[in-house]
């Protein structure tokens, strides 16, 4: 998948550069400043929601289009990627790039923003941390410096609160990823800690004026069913027998007051357990390597001190030293081999972030959960009196 996006982004960039005309625009607005905020159009949010709902439980991905203006990334449109079929993977790869290119051309024709600013992905319970996410985002950020990935969690959203994240890889990590060298030393050198791989940006949702009008209209329609007079003023062909529907207004959103959500916690614990185990394994592998390294170093140290001893005893006897300075250097082929074979720390960085995400979600869930429980208690006591 990663290579696919890489190809695709390369193709797109070519097509895109030929088309842009930037004359007559205030240069201050064109300057790219570090991003500090992501602004999503309501349309984008709904499109992502729709696409991910249709594809659930398979992860859905798509492209974000928009523009960055003085540090705010304005995402004004998006389109879904085609689903990957397993049968004809080689063929699909080409088609995927072609599809994106065509879509961009079509959108450009009708004055839509056709500027790629990132991509989106759905996730299940926040389990989005993996190598492919990082790889894809790396490719995006390399081709389009100001791109983000929007991660959408449908499971949490159905509980009543829209859950979106906007993430970007940090510059330090980008550099490191380019060399694919994730040793302890390089991490320390670049001052990278698990939490500083990704930068999380605040998200804002923006509506157009017309949309604001529509939202007021929709809210009214649902909250106040049409009066008799109103219904009679419409043509008779619009008559429908009144069937009670379960459509409720947007707010108050009663999904949030749902009490029984044990399964959510259960799943979280299960996943958390698995991830912690993975983390343990990763740690264990690294420690194994560390032990090996230490053993080798010790062995080397011993040989050297032995040689030094021999040298000094020979010097005392007035003989030339048996070992040259070179022989006394604490290096050996085995040592360099071990050093070169340090297991990559990338996986452990990712796992740490995953654990952190799970834990945060549990605590975020528990707060409202506790509140709801005590609320129930409060309602009950009143009911008894």
């Amino acid at each position, binding site marked *: 998948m990663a290579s696919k996006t890489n190809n695709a982004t390369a193709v797109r960039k070519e097509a895109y550069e030929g088309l842009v005309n930037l004359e007559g625009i205030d240069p201050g607005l064109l300057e790219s400043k570090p991003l500090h905020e992501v602004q999503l159009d309501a349309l984008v949010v709904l499109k992502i929601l*729709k696409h991910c709902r249709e594809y659930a439980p398979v992860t859905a991905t798509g492209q974000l289009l928009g523009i960055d203006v003085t540090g705010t990334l304005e995402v004004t449109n998006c389109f879904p990627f085609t689903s990957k079929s397993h049968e004809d993977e080689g063929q699909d790869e080409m088609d995927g790039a072609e599809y994106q290119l065509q879509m961009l051309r079509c959108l450009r024709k*009708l004055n839509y923003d056709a500027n790629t600013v990132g991509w989106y992905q759905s996730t299940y319970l926040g389990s989005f941390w993996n190598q492919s996410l990082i790889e894809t985002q790396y490719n995006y950020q390399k081709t389009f410096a100001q791109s983000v990935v929007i991660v959408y969690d449908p499971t949490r959203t159905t509980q009543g609160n829209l859950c979106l994240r906007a993430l970007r890889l940090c510059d330090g990590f980008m550099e490191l990823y380019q060399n694919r060298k994730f040793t302890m030393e390089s991490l320390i050198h670049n001052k990278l800690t698990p939490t500083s791989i990704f930068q999380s940006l605040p998200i804002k949702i923006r*509506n157009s004026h017309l949309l604001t*009008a529509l939202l007021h209209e929709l809210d009214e329609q649902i909250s106040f069913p049409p009066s008799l007079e109103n219904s009679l003023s419409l043509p008779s062909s619009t008559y429908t027998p009144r069937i009670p529907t379960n459509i409720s207004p947007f707010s108050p959103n009663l999904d949030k007051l749902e009490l029984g959500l044990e399964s959510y916690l259960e799943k979280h614990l299960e996943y958390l357990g698995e991830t912690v185990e993975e983390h343990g394994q990763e740690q264990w592998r690294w420690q194994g390597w560390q032990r090996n390294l230490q053993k080798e170093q010790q062995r080397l140290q011993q040989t050297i001190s032995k040689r030094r001893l021999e040298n000094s005893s020979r010097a005392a006897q007035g003989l030339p030293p048996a070992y040259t300075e070179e022989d006394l250097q604490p290096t050996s082929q085995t040592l360099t081999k071990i050093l070169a074979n340090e297991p990559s720390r990338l996986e452990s960085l990712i796992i740490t972030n995953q654990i952190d995400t799970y834990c945060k979600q549990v605590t975020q869930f*528990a707060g409202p959960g506790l509140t709801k*429980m005590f609320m129930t208690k409060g309602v009950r006591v009143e009911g008894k009196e």
Partner: protein
Amino acid sequence: MPTSTSFLHLQFPPASLGTSSPSTFSVSVGPVVLFSVLDHYLRRPEQQPRVIGALLGVRSEDGSEVEIRNCFPLSHSETSDQQVVVDTEYLNQMYSLHQRVNSKETIVGWYATGTEINPNSVWIHEFFANETAPFQPVHLLVDTKLSNDKMACRAFVSSQVGVPGTDHPGSMFLQIPCDVKYFDAERSGLDLISMAKDTPDRTAGLLSDMDSLERSVLQVQNMIETVSTYVNSVLTKKEQANSAIGRFLMDTVSLVPRIDADEFEKMFSSHLQDLLMVVYLANLTRTQLAIAERLHKMM
């Protein structure tokens, strides 16, 4: 029997050719469609008075219900002397692109913005009838001019009528019921999006779980407040009692489950313990990670 002669009785057009016409015909629209239409309207070229596009969706088996799930914009040009040019190549290309993402959604009709159906609409409708054959195309009209201070969205199907003096049958557009339909996740999204409708800069940030719960609780509290004011005013005879409302209230109150106090206490404490335990574990894990990170930094 009305004596006036201005009545014109129109049959619903058959949903598909060859089958008997169903008695009802209705349309439901996903919110994403309306949002896209408005977005398209905002991006139209300056001189263009209205925009059109294709509607994608699914039909029920008998063709009597259409669910509009998606749409895409089209470029077209209209001149006053009833000349309409629709970019068919664009339509085909866009349609095949959409088909690759979701093959279930087919063209079910077209949308336009504005307040009225003009003669050009008839031609466009006929054009789309070819695309949707053997079914009837649906026409969605979104009023972006906000006439009557309302953003009405209306759906139409066309029916043929004979016009005296011409060979060509005329078309009559029949308005059909159309409602907005959304799913759970979409409601959560819309809830947040509609939060922005009352702020002057039309933006809204994401809420934390706690804040959104607070919002919901406050809203429910307001509702309870309204109901209790009403009940009180009925009790003090300030307002006339409405038995329908009374019945609804009765139903709601009777929905509160009765649980034995001891039982409740037991359930409550066990749940509380579970929840606290999980939180404790989660925090412990996080602390571990934080320590690891600190150590990492010190190296």
